[in-house]
């Protein structure tokens, strides 16, 4: 397959899927922490999304970045528009903008990584080795 054909397939996939995530690995087996976090946020919003693993062929990433003018992975597209990478998705998720943009209810609980204010800190283990 030529690079142009790959780019056309990517453009088609972005056009045909309302919500599509280009990531390293798959939603079940993400191969990078940023992809994993992004998948986790989408899953917690309970929205269906298409996912494309960029790892099998380096040209997927190369052509995607050329098309989107965005250098890093993951990349989330909604209705053909680039929403952003993990940082932007995280910011929008935390502010509720992502849920609003996708037309779903905001999740009742904050993401697992965020500390809940007012909750006791997790028990620490004393370091006796200093």
């Amino acid at each position, binding site marked *: 397959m030529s690079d142009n054909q790959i780019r056309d397939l990517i453009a088609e996939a972005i056009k045909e899927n309302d919500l599509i995530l280009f990531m390293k690995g798959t939603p079940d087996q993400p191969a990078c922490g940023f992809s994993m976090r992004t998948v986790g946020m989408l899953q917690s919003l309970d929205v269906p999304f298409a996912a494309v693993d960029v790892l099998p062929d380096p040209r997927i990433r190369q052509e995607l970045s050329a098309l989107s003018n965005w*250098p890093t992975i993951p990349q989330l597209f909604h209705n053909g528009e680039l929403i952003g990478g993990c940082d932007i998705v995280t910011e929008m998720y935390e502010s509720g903008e992502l849920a609003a943009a996708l037309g779903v209810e905001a999740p009742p609980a904050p993401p697992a990584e965020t500390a809940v204010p007012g909750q006791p800190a997790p028990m620490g283990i004393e370091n006796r080795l200093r």
Partner: protein
Amino acid sequence: MPSADELKQRIEAAIPGAEAEVQSPDEVHFSARVRADAFAGLSRVQQHRLVMDIFDGELGGSIHALELKTEAP
């Protein structure tokens, strides 16, 4: 390897009026918070592009990851 301070200086030199805070535990993974007048009226994607374009070709290479948070004043 680039230092956090080098990234800060490059961001502030490239984007007029930008103030950047850059942290890095290992000079490979970076986390930056950038505030700039130039971001006014731009979408988050456009704001991030302005910063990432500075490190074109280095992202994924000497800069493994750049965690970014942008804000307009």
